[in-house]
């Protein structure tokens, strides 16, 4: 669907992932087929390098959509804030 405008997603990286990527947040416009948290993770991993290694399927990466913990099948909509981070270690 080349004529469909891409949706904009705000992506946030925290803790070890922020350091590894060298960026804390960015606005991305993934292609139309990227409709879930899992698909966004795979699309970012396709950048290669540290993106591929940190977001590889076997790595423990947690996701949140609009500040709620989200599973891989969580749907994405334009304007969502999606965060990627390691398992939490507070308390």
């Amino acid at each position, binding site marked *: 669907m080349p004529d469909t405008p891409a949706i904009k997603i705000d992506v946030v990286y925290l*803790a070890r992932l922020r350091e590894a990527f060298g960026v804390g947040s960015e606005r991305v416009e993934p292609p139309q087929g990227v409709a879930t948290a899992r698909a966004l993770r795979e699309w970012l991993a396709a950048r290669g390098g540290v993106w591929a290694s940190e977001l590889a399927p076997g790595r423990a990466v947690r996701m949140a959509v609009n500040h*709620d913990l989200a599973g891989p099948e969580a749907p994405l909509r334009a304007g969502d804030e999606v965060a990627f981070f390691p398992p*939490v270690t*507070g*308390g």
Partner: protein
Amino acid sequence: MPVRVQVQDFDVSRELGALRAGDARVGAVAAFVGTVRDVNDAAAVATMTLEHYPGMTEKALQAIVDEAKSRWDIVDALVIHRVGELAPADQIVLVGVTGAHRGEAFAACEFIIDHLKTRAPFWKKEATPAGARWVDARASDDDAAARWRLPEGGPGR
């Protein structure tokens, strides 16, 4: 009711006093205080820096408190979590719960800290003689939170 994320230290006595102030329904106050240890995974810890995810943190903590209130007959609950740079022996977190009786207050307090450790977006980074390192999550924390799961079809989550 209150959930707070802050850099500054907290006074446990003052916070618990405020939580139950003037409320004669309260017959029990249970509290948990987490503090910084000077050794973790066999390495000396000089300082610990706590990072969080502003916006999500408060929402996650409030959801945990709300769930505790729905599961136990408690009067009120308080969570204060510090962020920024901390030193060994510093206070990190306070969970306080008031209730009519100790059983519900103890259980709700333990539930809240167990879920904070697995659901609230905080991360610890330690400065050690070998350099700075992010603290790894512990499987035992997942186990601690999992034991509160209700049977399928039961109330709550």
